[in-house]
């Protein structure tokens, strides 16, 4: 996970969800720790898509979690989310 990515994502979450930025940490779980609900998360994903020029595959991630193929931690703990964002950016620029 790049520090730059986390800094931008933390700022997006703080602004979108009105959470103090100091409470947004790499090991924070967006849902369990920060209390972000699914509708607020759409705003966050929208801002991430715009900021990084990617399309976060939220539908596929949600489906994987619902099917038991992934845990929520894999996508919604911020350091993991940011690592996925880095991969999506790298794939786009490849």
């Amino acid at each position, binding site marked *: 996970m790049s520090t730059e990515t986390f800094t931008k994502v933390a700022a997006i979450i703080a602004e979108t969800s009105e959470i103090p930025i100091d409470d947004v940490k790499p090991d924070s779980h967006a849902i369990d720790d920060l209390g972000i609900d699914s*509708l607020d998360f*759409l705003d966050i*994903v929208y801002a991430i*898509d715009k900021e990084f020029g990617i399309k*976060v*595959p*939220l*539908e596929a991630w*949600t489906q994987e979690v619902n099917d038991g193929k992934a845990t929520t931690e894999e996508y919604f703990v911020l350091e993991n989310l940011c690592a996925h964002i880095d991969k999506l950016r790298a794939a786009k620029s490849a």
Partner: protein
Amino acid sequence: MIDAVSAFDEEGKTLTADCVVPDESPVFEGHFPGHPLMPGVLLVETMAQASGYLILGLKRFVNMPFLAGVKNAKFRNFVEPGAPLTVTASLDHDGSGFAMTKASVSSAGASLCQATLVFKIMPFPARELEQHLRASAVRIGMPDRVLSR
């Protein structure tokens, strides 16, 4: 709320539609006595319908957009019975499982309202709903090409 789609620009991801506020409606009895106005919530509904048909058309009626959020709604002028309305919806963002549109309503060139709308996009929860929307799309003049998968 929408009477007819006047333009569906696939490349520009924009839909324009027309409708006329009814001269009489039970809504006007309470909103407001002696000063009938189209409620803002119905203007939002009009923008949501235009946005919904835009998304349905762009996605070929595969999934259903459900209104999930209304942002930055502004109501600039009163809308009275009989007013002819033009509603425009443009796709602002095509996300994974969601979409955002920017929509506006005008009358005789005057801006009436605008908003950014958020839609959660899901499989149709009922075949009946899909059939109803397809029939409505035909009625309001959505292009044939967007009705087939």
